[in-house]
């Protein structure tokens, strides 16, 4: 099998008093073995919920994975029972969260928290686990590992904690690492270090990474393949170089245009006009139509489907539907 994980027509809804919110709406993609796939999009576009759905973190009542299939090494994660799911989580799929400060238990020592998955999944003894934990701390580039293992999370900086999170995540040599905005809460210099480290780890252990971010700089740095999400749907996906050089969807173009360029002081930074539509009253239309510069009449009445355009690139936009273009 050449895919680490394959997501097939995944839909996750949240039920609110005003109605159902389609946080993730019919999303399909795959993460090839040993590659990094990035999901990009603004806040609220459903990228985190996609990750949560994969890990089974969407909790009922409130949210529910409505339909779809998440194929991980031949098994559908959505159909697994609690026990088998537990043995996959942390063991074969690991996850890093956005806020390292709050993702570690404040009353447990760092060492103990790294030891936990080792003891549970790899059935190590406490002593072995401790030795391994200290190795891991060293591996993520923290000096004085013994001392760090005996300290509490509040005694470390954000960057160090994110390294610890990574140490925990890679402790069982997972096949897939999901990183949900791993560098958002960190400052830029630390960001680069963390990303470098993730890349090294990936190449050394042949792990796949599903990276969720809103930072196009991170995407350019890390991704092999990019998925652009908007309002719970994939609007464009493609190989990273291709997508950055020849973005197809007006939204992707807008995103790329609104990225500040260093050494270039513009009067005003470009921003996509308008707001993300209210997820409660989405019409049968292209969700982007009221912010789109190239909006056509069909965009307001029908939703475009994800279509292959060129090699390795897909886009959901009426501009590229040849049949429509001819009408």
């Amino acid at each position, binding site marked *: 099998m050449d895919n680490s994980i394959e997501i097939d027509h995944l839909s996750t809804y949240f039920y609110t008093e005003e109605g159902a919110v389609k946080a993730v709406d019919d999303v399909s993609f795959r993460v090839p073995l040993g590659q990094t796939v990035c999901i990009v999009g603004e806040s609220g576009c459903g990228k985190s919920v996609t990750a949560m759905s994969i*890990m089974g*973190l969407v909790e009922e009542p409130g949210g529910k994975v409505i339909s779809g299939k998440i194929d991980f090494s031949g098994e559908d994660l959505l159909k697994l029972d609690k026990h088998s799911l537990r043995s996959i989580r942390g063991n074969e799929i*690991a996850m890093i969260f956005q806020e390292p400060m*709050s993702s570690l238990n*404040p009353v*447990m020592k760092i060492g103990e928290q790294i030891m*936990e998955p080792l003891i*549970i999944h790899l059935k190590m003894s406490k002593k072995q686990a401790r030795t391994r934990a200290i190795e891991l701390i060293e591996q993520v580039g923290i000096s004085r590992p013994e001392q760090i293992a005996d*300290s509490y999370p509040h*005694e470390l900086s954000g960057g160090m904690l994110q390294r610890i999170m990574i140490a925990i995540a890679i402790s069982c040599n997972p096949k897939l690492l999901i990183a949900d905005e791993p560098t958002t809460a960190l400052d830029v210099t630390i960001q680069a270090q963390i990303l470098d480290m993730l890349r090294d780890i990936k190449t050394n252990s042949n792990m796949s990474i599903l990276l969720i971010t809103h930072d196009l700089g991170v995407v350019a740095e890390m991704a092999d393949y990019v998925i652009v999400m908007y309002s719970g749907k994939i609007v464009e996906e493609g190989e990273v170089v291709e997508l950055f050089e020849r973005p197809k969807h007006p939204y992707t173009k807008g995103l790329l245009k609104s990225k500040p360029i260093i050494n270039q002081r513009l009067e005003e930074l470009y921003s996509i006009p308008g707001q993300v539509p209210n997820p409660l009253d989405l019409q049968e239309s292209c969700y982007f139509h009221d912010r789109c510069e190239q909006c056509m009449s069909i965009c307001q009445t029908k939703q475009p489907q994800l279509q292959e355009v060129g090699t390795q690139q897909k886009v959901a936009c009426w501009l590229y539907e040849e049949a429509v273009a001819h009408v």
Partner: protein
Amino acid sequence: MITTPTKLVNAKRTKDSPVKSSLFRQSIRKLSKNKLAVSGFVVVILMFVACFIGPLFSPYTDNKINMAMMNKAPHLKHWLGTDALGRDVLTRVLLAGRISLTVGLASMMLSVFIGSLLGALAGYYRGIVDQIIMRIADLLLTIPSLPLLFIFGALLSEWKIPTDYRMYIVMLMLSFVGWPGLARMVRGQMLSLREREFMQAAVVLGLRDRRKLFNHLLPNIVPLLIVIATLNIGGAILSESVLSFFGLGVMPPTPTWGNMIDAANNMIDFQERPWLWIPPGFSIFATVIAINIFGDGLRDVLDPKQKR
């Protein structure tokens, strides 16, 4: 040449590295600055020492009835006088303290155990488990605890439970009425803690519920538990005294502070022989006040959010 600097660094590290100042040490340091709390703590400790060690030095521990020494006012041989059966009041107050403090401590531990376990389960699993546990707790909370304890006490007398066992049953009774309030508080904490990001991280690590509950969640509320537990001891001692005072708790001849103050029920004893009821009364007063002051100080240190 090389060893000297490393040694220096190491020495410095052990002296004031952040690793050394755990929450526990910090709390003790902060607590020791609170004079009132410290004095409360000292009184409690003195009380314990006096009650558990004091009687060893008394020649009257056999509780023998001595008709020649009935109702004697305090004098050199009997520092706090003697009671109607010629027993030494000081010795009895100390022995009573053993029982009262033990009952207070034990029933506190039991109610903290039950309360935190049930509260944790309710808050963690929510849904039907929560409903069942919390409705039982609500039911117990709606019934005023004193009448409930009286009914239990009356039942115990009715069933003629041997006096030796009554002490243990009183402990059970007190923890039975003590756990609901605690369970409520623990549940509230659990509800908010379980949504925190580190618990999501724990789910993602594939941990079992038991591990999440006892290794990850409960340690987070230990400070709260310590505070409540401390304050609970005072309450339990008080309840036990009330019960025993009414003759529904621990029965004589086993002395407790509560059944010793019973002497105040008798008009003559009350007016003429204050040495019979003032010492146990003062012991209850001092202990409970001291525990509460200490508990308040603890709360300021461990649980600053709860400050009114």
